């Protein structure tokens, strides 16, 4: 069973003094789960196993929009090895769930609203038996017209994806097929447009991206003697899952005990529930442990995707390059169920003009209900689509003004003190111009790297690579730049907090700390830095990271770049309280022996209580003896405000993150093949708590942006709303051959409001990567290219 308790080994030696523990913040300590992960011992959610377990299988809809006329399970039920076949009629309690809107059926009833929606459920003693039984369930559909875009969603006779909506946005939206609408009006864009010497407009299309985490949705549900269930799953937020699961099982939350199983990547795709409720229902129904594992095909239907978007922009500038105004309209396709669409709309709207100073704006963002696959969270969350468009606009504007595109950006770059379109003042460093300067100043990668000393070309360095499609003929280089702005943490007045339980005690004569949080480790390295923070704050060498579960308070989601800030902040805060308690015990015990104990500035360092002058007063072990100190506390970032529904004004965000990219590409203009040669990034990270992990996050985020630029898109048939490429054969993500070198240059400009000055890092690099690559391809080809991804046919005119 997954018991991922682990003592954190200390990483590479550094030059810390004797008095300090090694492996505190700022050091590149190594992952505590590294050894388990390289030996194959790490227990991912799909590795769970239990004596006598059954396998669960979902039957999903083959059509996008239809009434369910009948479901016949009789043949499936008679198969050997089948233990249960369930439909919506068998659901024990609440029939719907959802993070922000409870609009998602556990199993479809009445209607299906998108291709691949769960309709029935099987448990059998072998996964193949379960699959075959599911295939024997007969469902009769009466197909309905599909809503697939803004025109079909808002037409006068538009069919409603959800009738009788009653949610927190249904009262203000202009149409029931609009999940949420967020306008932002500031200044007078119409009047400002009169002052513009140059105006550029553009229409942009952003394709649907998949998170494509490698560990499939999976887990194990074990029925318990008390009528509850023990659930081992991979998720981004245990407590959010719990709140949605318990009502659907008809159980109180304390009878649904959740433990984090190993998570094989997330990127937003595990914010929503996948198999959690279904496996639990099967386990409770059969009285046996039930394992569920999606295959890759099912995974494409098993989680939400990044919202595809249409974006219209108008930018104006004076002849010397100062932006006069921006007008934009962003239409995000939320698909059949809301997921986090409303929050994505808020982000897209509030971040829609990018990291620039613009006083006069007219912004509108809407999220639609359609019969396309549901869309929700993915790394970058609404800011990615906008960045692709506003950065294309900045290049267009620079071209029309005859200016250098980087200089135009620097001229209009926001800085600390700039007012956002929402009226919020950016009150910590915003080194936008400096990030651009850094990527631009970097030396260019050498030209014609495919040329070898001998004869012939190394085709591996050319577009087309091992396909040997070119030896350099028709290959043109291009360079492009982009910069972006992303919010960090949960916004718009959400009560965003994390909880940390910290324990310090003496084991074998040494003070050791235990960190217990519900933080989802999805690969980002939270477990590494949790130990670093505890070492720094408590001055102990040995730190044990307790498995994440629901026996401790919520950590909030591992998303929005928030965990180092939030759970890191919670750990720091709880450690500070623990430290005070330890010092209190010390003062009681030893206070009379040394006047320094009365000094308020005592620290815990190197396993000792020391004065700020460095004098050691006692070991922590002597202070504590057999006493343990344990603290569990919630910790919050400063509050935010909702955006006004008419003007969009409000201090909606906690913190902003900035990254810039320079892309160098080579394009085989005859075949339309693109090779990205280098994708350099500069980013302000506030404080690099673990430099090795920081660079890894930036490189990973950059690569996901590269994928969108040149290959990634879930293709949905506009006539049927069916997904056409649910596999890694047809949905491509970058391989090591597609990914260039990614030099990273990070700044550490502390945010005074954040613990240690940290700034969320995971998302910003995913924003500017895509438009930088697009700009470079435009520079190489002279083509306009207003759509992601850029496929060969877009470059050769054979579209």
């Amino acid at each position, binding site marked *: 069973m997954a*018991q991922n*308790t*682990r*003592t954190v080994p200390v990483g*590479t030696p550094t030059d810390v003094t004797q008095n300090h523990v090694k492996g505190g913040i700022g050091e590149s300590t*190594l992952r*505590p*789960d*590294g*050894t*388990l*992960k*390289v*030996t*194959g*011992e*790490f227990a*991912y959610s*799909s*590795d769970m*196993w239990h004596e006598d377990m059954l396998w669960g299988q979902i039957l999903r809809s083959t059509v996008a929009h239809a009434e369910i006329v009948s479901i016949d399970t009789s043949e499936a039920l008679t198969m050997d090895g089948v233990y249960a076949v369930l439909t919506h009629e068998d659901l024990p309690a609440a029939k719907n769930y959802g993070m922000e809107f409870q609009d998602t059926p556990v199993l479809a009833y009445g209607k299906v609203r998108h291709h691949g929606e769960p309709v029935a459920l099987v448990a059998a003693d*072998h996964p*193949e038996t379960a699959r075959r039984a599911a295939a024997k369930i007969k469902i009769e559909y009466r197909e309905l017209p599909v809503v697939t875009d803004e025109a079909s969603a808002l037409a006068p006779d538009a069919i409603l994806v959800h009738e009788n909506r009653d949610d927190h946005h249904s009262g203000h939206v202009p149409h029931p097929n609009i999940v949420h609408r967020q306008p932002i009006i500031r200044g007078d864009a119409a009047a400002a447009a009169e002052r513009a010497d140059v105006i550029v407009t553009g229409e942009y299309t952003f394709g649907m991206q998949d*998170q494509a*985490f*490698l*560990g*499939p949705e999976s887990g194990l549900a074990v029925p318990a003697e008390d009528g509850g269930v023990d659930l081992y799953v991979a998720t981004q937020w245990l407590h959010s899952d719990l709140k949605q699961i318990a009502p659907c099982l008809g159980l109180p939350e304390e009878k649904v005990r959740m433990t984090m199983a*190993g998570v*094989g*990547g*997330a*990127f937003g795709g595990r914010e929503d529930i996948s198999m959690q409720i279904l496996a639990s229902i099967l386990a409770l129904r059969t009285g046996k442990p039930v394992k569920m594992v999606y*295959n*890759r095909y099912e995974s494409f239907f098993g989680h939400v995707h990044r919202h595809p978007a249409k974006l219209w922009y108008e930018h104006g500038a004076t002849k010397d390059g100062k932006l006069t105004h921006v007008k934009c309209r962003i239409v995000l396709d939320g698909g059949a169920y809301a997921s986090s669409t409303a929050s994505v709309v808020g982000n897209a709207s509030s971040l829609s003009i990018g990291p620039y100073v613009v006083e006069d704006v007219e912004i509108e963002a809407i999220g639609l209900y359609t019969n396309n696959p549901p869309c929700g969270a993915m790394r970058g969350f609404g800011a990615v689509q906008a960045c692709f468009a506003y950065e294309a606009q900045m290049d267009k504007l620079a071209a029309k003004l005859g200016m250098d595109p980087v200089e135009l950006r620097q001229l209009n770059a926001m800085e600390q003190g700039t007012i956002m379109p929402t009226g919020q003042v950016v009150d910590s460093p915003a080194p936008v111009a400096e990030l651009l300067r850094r990527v631009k100043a970097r030396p260019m990668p050498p030209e014609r790297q495919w040329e070898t000393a001998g004869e012939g070309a*190394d085709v*591996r*360095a050319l577009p087309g690579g*091992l396909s040997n499609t070119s030896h350099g003929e028709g290959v043109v280089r291009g360079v492009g730049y982009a910069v972006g702005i992303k919010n960090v943490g949960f916004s718009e007045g959400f009560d965003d907090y994390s909880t940390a339980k910290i324990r310090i005690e003496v084991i074998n004569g040494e003070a050791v700390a235990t960190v217990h949080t519900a933080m989802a480790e*999805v*690969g*980002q*390295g939270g477990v590494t830095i949790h130990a670093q923070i505890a070492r720094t704050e408590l001055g102990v060498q040995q730190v044990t990271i307790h498995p994440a579960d629901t026996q401790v308070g919520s950590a909030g989601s591992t998303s929005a770049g928030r965990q180092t800030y939030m759970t890191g902040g919670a750990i720091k805060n709880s450690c500070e309280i623990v430290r005070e308690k330890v010092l209190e015990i010390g003062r009681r015990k030893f206070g009379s022996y040394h006047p320094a104990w009365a000094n308020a500035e005592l620290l815990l360092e190197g396993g000792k209580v020391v004065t700020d002058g460095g004098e050691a007063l006692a070991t922590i072990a002597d202070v504590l003896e057999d006493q343990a100190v344990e603290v569990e506390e919630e910790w919050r970032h400063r509050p935010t405000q909702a955006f006004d529904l008419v003007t969009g004004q409000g201090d909606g965000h906690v913190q902003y993150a900035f990254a810039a990219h320079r892309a160098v590409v080579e394009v085989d203009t005859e075949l339309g093949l693109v090779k990205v040669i280098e994708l350099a990034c500069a980013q302000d990270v506030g404080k690099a708590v673990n430099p*090795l*992990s920081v*660079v*890894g996050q930036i*490189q*990973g*985020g950059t*690569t996901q942006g590269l994928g969108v630029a040149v290959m990634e898109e879930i293709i949905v048939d506009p006539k049927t709303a069916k997904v056409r490429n649910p*596999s*890694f*054969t047809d949905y491509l*993500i970058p*391989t*090591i*051959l597609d*990914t260039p070198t*990614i030099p990273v240059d990070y700044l550490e400009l502390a945010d005074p409001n954040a613990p240690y000055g940290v700034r969320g890092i995971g998302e910003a690099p995913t924003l500017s990567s895509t438009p930088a690559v697009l700009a470079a391809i435009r520079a190489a080809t002279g083509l306009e290219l207003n759509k992601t991804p850029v496929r060969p046919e877009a470059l050769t005119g054979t579209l």
Partner: protein
Amino acid sequence: MRVNFTVNGRPQEADDVWEGESLLYVLRERLGLPGSKNACEQGECGSCTVRLDGVPVCSCLVAAGQVEGREVVTVEGLAEYAKEREAHGGCASGACGTSVDAAKRWEAKPAQDSQTGEGVELSPIQQAFIDAGAVQCGFCTPGLLVAADEMLERNPSPTDADIREALSGNLCRCTGYEKILDAVRLAAARQERQGEAV
């Protein structure tokens, strides 16, 4: 059906195997070796890479019956495999591959501490992945390790282009591959230094 084969040097017997089961399924669900991963189960991602008679293959594409009487090495046996290889002359010559006799002489040893993995002896490529920061979520790691180890066996001093070519069948979604390249370079450099020291 019953399938007899050798995994990480140990003879194994899997019973009641359905003819449609893959080697990956048998390893993961019947033999308790879940280290080989199931990211796509269609031969596109490389996360299930194992060595079959020395050759790297996607175990999801190998029918269980095809391994009858053959030798399989998984990530769980990688450290021992590398140790044996070094003990028996390494592979600097480029004429590599482990003979069946050699493979049979060793067995994978379980981790000393199954909770933390601490105290476990690692192969150079495994250690390099940890040291270089090449592991994030880690789901692609086992397949990459098996593939990278096999490449270093054939080509102890690979160029970047060689590394990229050899690992092009292994998808990673977290790292952007930069630190994976670092890890392979590091393992090659350490291997070279060790070779010089000998």
